[in-house]
């Protein structure tokens, strides 16, 4: 380790919300990463909880595969409620 490794930072803005990616920090260990993330990303009540993950452990899908991965979802309109035309007389559905 010559340079401080990179960590991705995720913040939960308040309880009830998911943690959301906000950016990254450099730190030598997890504790320092949390402290830097706190100073960098939560100076104004932006969060109640922080996750840090070494960036090298993130596996991302390839944008090249976008069509292969997500295109099939687009032609499955029958997965949406509006696909089913029901008589107006039927209520509460």
């Amino acid at each position: 380790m010559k340079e401080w490794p990179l960590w991705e930072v995720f913040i939960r803005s308040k309880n009830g919300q998911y943690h959301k990616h906000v950016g990254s920090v450099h730190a030598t260990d997890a504790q320092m990463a949390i402290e830097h993330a706190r100073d960098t990303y939560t100076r104004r009540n932006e969060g109640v909880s922080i996750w840090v993950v070494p960036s090298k452990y993130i596996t991302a899908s390839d944008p090249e595969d976008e069509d292969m991965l997500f295109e099939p979802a687009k032609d499955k309109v029958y997965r949406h409620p509006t696909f089913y035309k029901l008589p107006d007389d039927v209520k509460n559905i």
Partner: protein
Amino acid sequence: MEHTTSIDLEKRFEEKIARELKIEPKDWMPEEYRRMLIRQISQHAHSEVIGMLPEKNWLTRAPTLRRKMALLAKIQDEAGHGLYLYSAVETLGVSREQLYRDFLDGKAKYSNIFNYPALTWADIGVIGWLVDGAAIVNQVSLQRTSFGPYARAMVRICKEENFHQRQGYSICLTLARGSAEQRQMLQDAINRWWWPVLMMFGPPDAESKHSQKSMKWKIKRASNDTLRQKFIDQTVPQLEYLGMKAPDPHLKWNPERGHYDYGPIDWEEFWNVIRGKGPCNKERLRTKRVAYEEGQWVRDAAIAYAKEYN
């Protein structure tokens, strides 16, 4: 899966730009787009970092504890802005450490404005009001930049900048309502900062060499002259409210254009400061270099500790 040609990739990229879709780090992008982003975002990051220096000189001499706390918080924000931006530029596959070293070695540019000194307490007010004010106009427009991580950093930064500008204007107001001496000090600071602040938006559109490509790829969203005019239009009424004057005899409202007219900018001075002949160029870089060298043992110790105990 069939092979995607570079022509396809380029077409898809241009389509995304045309449709106002953001480009994300792992998306294919032209090498020149990547280079332009690395240059612009890193220069922006260096500017945030060096921008702390003119203000920190006044931390120990702030007139009240409240002003001192506000200034300290503002300066800490600027460090944060630098970090958001280094984080954004790193997604393009460059090392933050390397970019920072280039900056310390004088190989990278940063905003010219920080090569001017903050001579009096009034300068701190004027920096917050005018320098951060100009930065806001630029950064609000960059919230719509085409590269996702840069746009997101801009949104975060803009949320914090309003505090910077308002604390600055509040200092100016106090001085404007003070003694004749205080008003004179304020006017003097405005006189010194006015023109350099107008230069922050960069050379006139006709002479700006990077602008066209940058606008085409939507890295930049408004031209230098457009942003400069916008800043002037919103600032002059604030100036008048203070009962102060701009050091520009040509500054006046033009009802036909619906904008303020302003006098010629001395671009010779701008280019001189860029070439290193500003009042503080050497001192600013020297300060950052010394800080980096003196902090080396801390960086080393942190690594040694992590190896030992993790």
